[in-house]
């Protein structure tokens, strides 16, 4: 049976968005279908793969396991909101520099999780990085260069803080 659409207001990548959505619409589909932000990917049905990771009110979450209506009033950042103009976020830059991506499908989720990790723990060791990536699967890289990239990004970000 159909249920009436509900109004939501969400700030996505700094931009206020208003929409009417079906209650069952998942946040990932709201981002991809309603807003055309297709950088957030769907890789599974069971909240395992992390390809759909975005930030909601500053926390990394799986947008496939959240209803769009639950994001009403929230501040959402997707992979499209990470770079500032043409300047890549240090984590994005690190993934290119350390070859932390191949097919690129898991990459947006990896970047979002890594960025969240570095906000809460600016100096993670390899074990902390691997623990933080428990909810992100990659099938191409063997994670080796992803871990390297996150370490590299952490160094860069600390360097930036030190010099600023």
């Amino acid at each position, binding site marked *: 049976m159909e249920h009436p659409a509900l109004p939501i207001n969400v700030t996505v990548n700094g931009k206020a968005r208003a929409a009417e959505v*079906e209650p069952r619409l998942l946040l990932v589909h709201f981002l991809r279908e309603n807003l055309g932000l297709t950088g957030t990917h769907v890789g599974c049905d*069971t909240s395992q793969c992390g390809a759909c990771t975005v930030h909601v009110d500053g926390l990394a979450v799986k947008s496939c396991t959240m209803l769009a209506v639950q994001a009403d009033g929230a501040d959402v950042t997707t992979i499209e909101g990470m770079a500032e103009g043409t300047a890549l976020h240090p984590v994005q830059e690190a993934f290119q520099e350390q070859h932390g991506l191949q097919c690129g499908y898991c990459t947006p989720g990896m970047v979002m999780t890594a960025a969240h990790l570095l906000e809460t723990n600016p100096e993670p060791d390899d074990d902390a990085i691997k623990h933080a990536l428990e909810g992100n699967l990659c099938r191409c890289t063997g994670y080796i260069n992803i871990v390297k990239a996150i370490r590299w990004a952490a160094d860069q970000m600390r360097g930036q803080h030190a010099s600023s």
Partner: protein
Amino acid sequence: MHPASFGYHAPRSLVEAFGLLREHGEDAKVLAGGHSLLPAMKLRLTQPEVLVDLRHVSGLSGIRVDGDTLVIGALTTHTEVSTAEAVRRSLPGLADTASVIGDLQVRNRGTMGGSVAHADPAADLPVTLTALDASFVLTSSEGERTVAADEFFVDFFTTALEPHEILTAIRIPLPPSPARTSYAKLPHPASGYVVVSAAAALSVDDAGACTAARVVLGGVAGTPHRATAAEAALTGQELTPEVMTAAAAQAADGIDPHADSYADEDYKRHMAVVYARRAIEAAAARA
């Protein structure tokens, strides 16, 4: 996968929420963080007609000390529990438990109340909360009642919660310092859920004797399993390696675990002993 269609309400108060639950009865499900419910709905394993989302109900989140009890709001996330200083200090076993649930993203959204109410036999928190002798505050339009963990978990995915009730808080007695609580988990390599886990809460007097012990196993039954033989073997004893090993050896007494595609019954039975020992030793080592 898209969940089947449903109606959605986000009441502003518990009173309003109770009204919705009364109106929709068994057709309604309470939504907290959604990390147990939404995956099941996406696979269409469950198809509620109505979701009652508690996100706008104030007072259901946060951690506070109430005398000798730690009170955790039902909507407190696993991340909040695992990082809260009060929990880390007083109930390290609970912090450890919350920090190994699911993954980072899941812990950021998943809530303690949601996990407890879902009562998945492969979940972490029910095991530890039973070991900690926690009780659950169940609130309805008629008032509230408090149910101890030992009575709350009834069967696979079944609790003492009535359809018109909402789990609003978890109350955990604060143990004397040092808090000898721990959690040891064998995670499933795919899901990260419990294959077998064990939680231990020990009290030790000044002479070094164990005055009280609760040892609880996860993954071996429909509900958290009190390893009473192990508990008895620890109580009144000095916690030497021999005593702890001998106690753990009795942890699997009386369990009848189910085989799955990963582990058979024998393995789970043996892991019950191994993880009980690890949990007991870790708890004893807290200082």
